[in-house]
């Protein structure tokens, strides 16, 4: 097995991410796509793209898979949970971070990172779509805006309306009610982000909010969510450049280590 490169594959329920790093831990290439109905098709395409982008023959490069589909990746030499991989990945990018909040498409997790980058405690929400990217997607659809524009729209509000439910189904009817009673879309959008932030801050408090705090996952790109979460937790949030890739990055780092 060549030790020059390592590949990490993060097969999430919404997107599949791949990262290839060199021995110095530098990212050589990365790629992200929708997972879709077939994990193996997604994985194959991600690997092919990494091969092309990196210009290397990846035949003997070690692969670690992570994410909910980690056991379904035939080409992986080892499967490691997304909890450990995110922790390692974020630690690699910013060793100061003590708490990591990752909000993905279908789940969210809060991880206390130990001194060596390994997790020391965590809480997961993967049973219900409240507090995940899915919640925001459903709400964006109800408001008739794209998911990319939902956050910016919310930031225009100076008077967020209150959305009391964090359950996706209940909140959906609440939002419809708000629209019906003539509330402004920006205020409703802001209320949605506040409700979601409160759900995630509760999850975070269960693990214990120890600064500095990082946020990753697709939802980390949403400025309104970051704004309200940071306000509710009363902390600054550090965001990596491509927040969806930390799990795959952690997996790639793990692929270059014998044991952890």
């Amino acid at each position: 097995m060549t030790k020059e490169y390592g590949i990490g594959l993060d097969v999430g329920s919404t997107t599949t991410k791949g990262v290839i790093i060199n021995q110095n831990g530098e990212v050589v290439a990365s790629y992200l796509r929708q997972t879709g109905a077939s994990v193996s098709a997604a994985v194959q395409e991600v690997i092919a793209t990494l091969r092309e982008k990196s210009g290397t023959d990846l035949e003997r490069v070690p692969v670690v898979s992570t994410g909910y589909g980690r056991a379904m990746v035939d080409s992986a030499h080892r499967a490691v949970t997304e909890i450990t991989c995110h922790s390692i990945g974020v630690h690699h990018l910013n060793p100061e971070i003590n708490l990591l909040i990752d909000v993905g498409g279908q789940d969210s997790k809060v991880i206390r990172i130990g001194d060596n980058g390994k997790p020391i405690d965590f809480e997961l929400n993967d049973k219900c779509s409240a507090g995940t990217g899915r919640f925001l997607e459903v709400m964006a659809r109800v408001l008739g805006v794209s998911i990319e524009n939902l956050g910016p729209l919310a930031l225009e509000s100076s008077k967020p309306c209150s959305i009391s439910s964090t359950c996706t189904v209940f909140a959906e009817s609440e939002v419809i009610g708000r629209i019906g009673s003539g509330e402004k879309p920006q205020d409703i959008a802001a209320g949605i982000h506040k409700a979601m932030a409160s759900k995630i801050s509760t999850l975070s408090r269960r693990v214990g909010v120890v600064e500095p705090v990082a946020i990753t996952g697709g939802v980390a790109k949403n400025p309104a969510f970051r704004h309200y979460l940071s306000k509710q937790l009363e902390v600054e949030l550090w965001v990596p450049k491509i927040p969806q890739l930390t799990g795959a990055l952690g997996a790639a780092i793990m692929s270059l280590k014998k044991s952890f």
Partner: protein
Amino acid sequence: MSEKKEKAYRLLEANNLLNQIMFRYMLEGHSASEEGRLAWLTSGFPVEIPLAMSLGVVYPEQYGAVVGSQKMGPQVCAFAENIGYSPELCSYARSSIGSVLKPEESPLEGLPKPQALLAGNNICGTVMKWYDAVSQLTGAPVFLLDTPPIDDVQGDHHKEYVKAGLERLITFISDHFDVELQDDRLREVADNSTRAIALWTEILQSCKAKPSPLNCADRFLAMAPVVSQRGTEYILEYYETLLKEVRERVSNGLGAIMDEKVRLLWDNIPPWFNIFRFFNSLAKRGVVFPADTYTHAWSGSFDSPDILNAIVSLYSNVYLNKGIDAKIDKMCELIMDYDLDGFVLFSVRSCKRYSLGQMVSKEIVMERTGVPGVIIEGDMVDSRLFNEAQVQTRIDALLEMIV
């Protein structure tokens, strides 16, 4: 990857004896019912009294475990849900009520028909309404032994109150079954109980050895007689045999699993429908559970001049009847004494009483012992509430924290 056919765990020879006594227990339940002297009991009920008064006993909770093990939980629970019982109700209660409604479609054709229902609320408040519901369906009268919760030390007023309950129980059985309680018979039964519990405690403690001679599933099966047939003499032979086998394993350095690497604590009832798959798949990865809070709940002794007082004290002080601190202390003690590397708290949707407080317990236990823990969610009977992939991720992450 090479697939080894070899088993990751060792089977116990004493299991043959266990099967025999469980069979005997079932037959005795049926004949007691036919003779009109069968009582259904909650797991924390002072069985010594009905037993000394010649009643046969069976345990609906244990029956729930059978329903779970046979993977019939969703079906039998649904019989109760279909007539309006909430899916939030304890799945032991649902499977019990469901099997009374449709015995022909339930494992073992349900439990034999009861002539009395003896409920103790030292384990939870659910049992009261559950036994009321069964009473409505079967016509058997209910007796409730009320043991108010204890926060620290059991006061005299508390002891007197519970003792008055025991006296009421004796009268209740006398009136319904026309029998008297003989002191020497009660002594005999209590001595058998004390002996069974002592053997059981010794068996549990042998798991301090490395490798541990028993895993979680072993203990959950082996505890059945001490839960349901303590007080009888015939179970003693089984526990003596098991203790002997366990001691042999320890002296020969043989573990319950082939290659012990990680030692964990288990909290709560197991997912019965998945018990072997769950613990054996972890065994393959070198994970053993030398201790758990649940099978350690049957402890204590009736070795006292006044048996009724001993009964009062033992049954009021079960830790489900005490504050959350008692369980936290117990977990820390087990982690230290059994030299465990981490812990798994199973949050059982059915059993609020056992599962409440696990979140804060996890934090405190981690802080006190310095080992990591994880909470997994599900149910002991209702497999609809158990998501294997989610449980797997949590356990895997815990193991990654340890090794």
